């Protein structure tokens, strides 16, 4: 914390380091292990070790990794490792879209009749 002063908040700038793979990142809610700080309280009898519901689609995983990296880059625009990671996410996202093997990508935007409703629990 090079910027500590009285009467104003100070927070250390994060450094780019180890990154979760995209599947684990989406499951944890961040690509950064050092920002993963879960809450451990749960109702009695609640099985917190149950596997997370459903298989998270590759497209959602890579889009999420890109989003989390983008927010990091918003406050660290000169970080070359982060830029490379982010660019790679965008390339993989484009490849998956071109393959168009998921419900939201295979039909035209306006073809609502033939696509799963987003909030009904369909997955992409």
């Amino acid at each position: 914390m090079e910027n500590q002063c009285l009467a104003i908040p100070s927070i250390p700038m994060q450094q780019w380091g180890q990154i979760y793979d995209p599947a684990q990142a989406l499951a944890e809610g961040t690509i950064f292990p050092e920002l993963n700080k879960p809450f451990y309280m749960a109702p009695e009898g609640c099985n917190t070790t149950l596997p997370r519901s459903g298989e998270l689609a590759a497209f959602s995983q890579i889009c999420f990794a890109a989003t989390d990296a983008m927010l990091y880059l918003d406050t660290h625009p000169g970080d070359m490792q982060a830029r490379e990671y982010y660019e790679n996410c965008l390339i993989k996202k484009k490849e998956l879209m071109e393959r168009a093997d998921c419900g939201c990508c295979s039909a035209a935007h306006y073809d609502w009749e033939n696509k799963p409703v987003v909030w009904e629990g369909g997955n992409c």
Partner: protein
Amino acid sequence: MWTYEQRLQYPVKITKTCPKTAQYIMSQYGGPDGEMAASMRYLSQRYSMPYKQVSGLLTDIGTEELAHMEIICAIVYQLTRNLTPEEAKTAGFDAYYIDHTKGIWPAAAAGVPFNACEFQSKGDAITDLAEDMAAEQKARTTYDNILRVVTDPEIRDPIKFLRAREVVHFQRFGEAMELAKDRMDSRNFYAFNPSFDMPGRPGTALRN
């Protein structure tokens, strides 16, 4: 400008109807520390933010909050989509049902409708960023409160995801505060409001 992606940022698959749970998770849609307030806060504050890097962060986090609002609405919808008239009488959800049936409407857990007074856009860089850091913590506490009482893993799963995002956003707003401080005079961050004052502009002067 925004475009819509036809997917949830995090999947929601809830198979059991539970109007009672829907009634309090709805608070993260239209409640005081909910996702709508979060999104509107950041997307409103960005105009007067004097630092382009920080107003860019407000835009990106405000946009992600819209996706979180959609996740919360999907949870509330799936918890009530198969609601029977008998279940509609569940204590806590009954009053909501009378006014909205199964419609999704932004309100707090206690029934207070969404209100822009839930957030502030103060037009001062330090004040707004301090509010944003507090907002992420308040939302995190609300998600903690939900996780302390909900047992269904199908509900806990997306709630855990949303909670994790609050921690990440808190770090980013803290870093934005650092970026703002770098652009101010550390001898007195409060000498003037960088979102309003332009020292040297005709008609203004720096005086003690």
